[in-house]
């Protein structure tokens, strides 16, 4: 057996291993911290690309811990959705931390830098674990690690806003975790299993006996994961948390962390719960309406913000709505659009946060109204920001257009043109708050700190260029990623 057979577990364990090595390195070999972090995430990227190739050529497979067969052991399920998500997490995670190696130097105290890398690696490991796992309780453990690590990378910057935002986030996600654990208990008591596959087999049999238990567990999952994914009425922690954190943390929190909970929800709704259950209660309709409200209200809140990162944070609430819109519509194209939007939004939102971070780094201002003429003095971040803004609005040749197109097609497929209209309206709203910034940035007169910015380090520029070319690349050649996305959607809907 060669090492490539163990890539599913190594993608997680190597990150964990380096996370725990980091405090030791920090003490004795400080200069190795950055290469070790980049190397560990790079290894996971290679592992996830290899897994993707494996899944696309030979189909999904399982990995059993300790060679214990499923009902007893924990297993990882490497299917289309999982490899897609793993690839998204590792690519964006690697670029963000490469940027962060420079940006963090001015945002954090020097002695906590090593701890930041520890937390970041833990966060990556837990996210990858969450999308790969095929076991309910294992998922809960990864959810908890993810919650603590993501609060940690906010509160590590010891300003009072960060601490308060992290505390709010921690308390609310503790409520969410409580709901998740209760839901797992409800499922376990009626099925006697924790493995997704076995639960899915047992649920239709026990559904007539204990319909209430199963419905309650579904509701608790929806609330638990909804709080963590910032689905509309449960989003209150997000704007503070994502806007006060250091820029790389905001990028990874907005770009990736809220999405993995959405992926967990997709796995539960489509792979675990039987379709007949969805007829007993209007779960999908509820998700749809919450998503619609998220899209409209998130955008409206974003319009009135003057803080650049707060605006981006509110825009994330709207964008997570698109993902759940794709989940709730239950049609193939819509689900493809929703899953594709996870990837596209991960790229564009992390790019927007990183370019905002670069602007803050160079000029020291966070106010949108101060950014007049910044396009002339700071071309790279401003062009990246504009590209991200275009992608958010959904202008063709950017990747945002593709996912919105699929979502709109999906809503027309199931005969609900209302949701296509919602997407159109929200694109207009996005235009209202993104485009004036772009126009101001290029056609204003630079003044104050904006006129003479600090030069940007190479790492920041390279990361922004990489993400920016990603936006264009996947906008012009969507088929690069659409292959795995459509396979994922088909296998979730049982069409494969």
């Amino acid at each position, binding site marked *: 057996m060669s090492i490539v057979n163990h890539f599913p577990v190594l993608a997680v364990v190597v990150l964990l291993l380096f996370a725990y090595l980091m405090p030791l390195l920090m003490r004795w070999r400080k200069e190795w911290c950055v290469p070790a972090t980049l190397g560990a995430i790079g290894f996971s990227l290679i592992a996830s690309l290899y897994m993707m190739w494996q899944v696309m050529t030979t189909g999904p497979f399982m990995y059993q811990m300790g060679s214990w067969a499923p009902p007893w052991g924990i297993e990882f399920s490497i299917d289309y959705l999982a490899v897609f998500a793993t690839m998204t997490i590792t690519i964006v995670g690697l670029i963000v931390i490469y940027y962060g190696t420079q940006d963090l130097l001015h945002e954090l105290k020097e002695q906590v830098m090593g701890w930041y890398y520890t937390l970041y690696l833990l966060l990556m490991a837990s996210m990858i674990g969450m999308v790969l796992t095929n076991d309910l*309780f294992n998922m809960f453990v990864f959810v*908890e690690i993810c919650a603590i690590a993501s609060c940690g990378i906010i509160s590590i910057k010891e300003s009072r806003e960060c601490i*308060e935002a992290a*505390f709010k986030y921690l308390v609310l996600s*503790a409520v969410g*975790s*409580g709901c998740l*654990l209760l839901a797992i*208990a409800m499922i*376990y008591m009626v099925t006697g299993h924790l493995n997704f596959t076995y639960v899915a087999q047992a649920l239709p049999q026990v559904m007539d006996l204990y319909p209430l238990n199963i419905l309650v567990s579904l509701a608790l999952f929806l609330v638990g994961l909804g709080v963590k994914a910032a689905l509309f009425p449960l989003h209150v922690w997000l704007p503070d948390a994502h806007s006060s954190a250091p820029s790389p943390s905001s990028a990874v929190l907005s770009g990736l962390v809220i999405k993995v909970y959405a992926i967990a929800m997709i796995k539960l709704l489509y792979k675990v719960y039987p379709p007949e259950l969805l007829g007993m209660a209007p779960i999908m309709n509820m998700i749809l309406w919450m998503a619609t409200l998220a899209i409209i209200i998130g955008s409206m809140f974003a319009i009135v913000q003057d803080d650049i990162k707060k605006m981006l944070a509110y825009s994330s609430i709207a964008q997570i709505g698109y993902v759940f819109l794709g989940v709730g519509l239950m049609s193939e194209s819509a689900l493809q659009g929703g899953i594709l939007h996870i990837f596209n939004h991960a790229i564009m939102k992390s790019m927007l946060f990183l370019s905002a971070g670069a602007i803050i780094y160079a000029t020291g201002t966070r106010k949108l109204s101060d950014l007049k003429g910044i396009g002339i003095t700071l071309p790279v971040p401003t062009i990246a920001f504009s590209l991200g803004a275009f992608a958010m609005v959904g202008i063709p040749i950017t990747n945002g257009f593709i996912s919105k197109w699929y979502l709109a097609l999906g809503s027309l497929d199931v005969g609900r043109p209302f949701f296509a209209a919602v997407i159109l309206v929200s694109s207009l709203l996005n235009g209202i708050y993104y485009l004036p910034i772009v126009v101001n940035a290029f056609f204003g007169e630079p003044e104050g700190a904006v006129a003479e910015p600090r030069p940007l380090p190479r790492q920041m520029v390279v990361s922004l260029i990489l993400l920016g070319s990603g936006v264009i690349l996947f906008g012009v050649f969507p088929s690069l990623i659409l292959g795995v996305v459509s396979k994922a959607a088909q296998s979730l809907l049982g069409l494969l």
Partner: protein
Amino acid sequence: MTMIDILLRLHQNSYYFFAIILFIIGFHTMLSHNNLIKKVIGMNIMDTSIFLFFVAIGYVNGGRAPILEPGVPYTAYVNPLPSALILTGIVVAVSVTAYALSLIVKLYKHYGTIDAEEIMRIRGGDIQ
């Protein structure tokens, strides 16, 4: 269904009932109290209620600990899986509690109070 029936069912599933009561007490403490430490205690009560519920569903009447010993005849045993899971849950709860308390220490350092409303008031003054 008569009153007796309901009471009988409640008696049979009393762990359900008490776990939910504890859960609500914890949840209420968490949401309604302004003192941040009390919020954390509420969080712990909530977690404990779920742990009790989870352990209770694995209990078998008259069962003993699932340890095989030579010479002891096989008897009914308690399902060990929920207990093992809850041990993990307790570890998680401990770490969340420790983290929350350390955040409260930092908050106290910055604001000089652990009252949520007071902190909101100070922050509100900050912005204007």
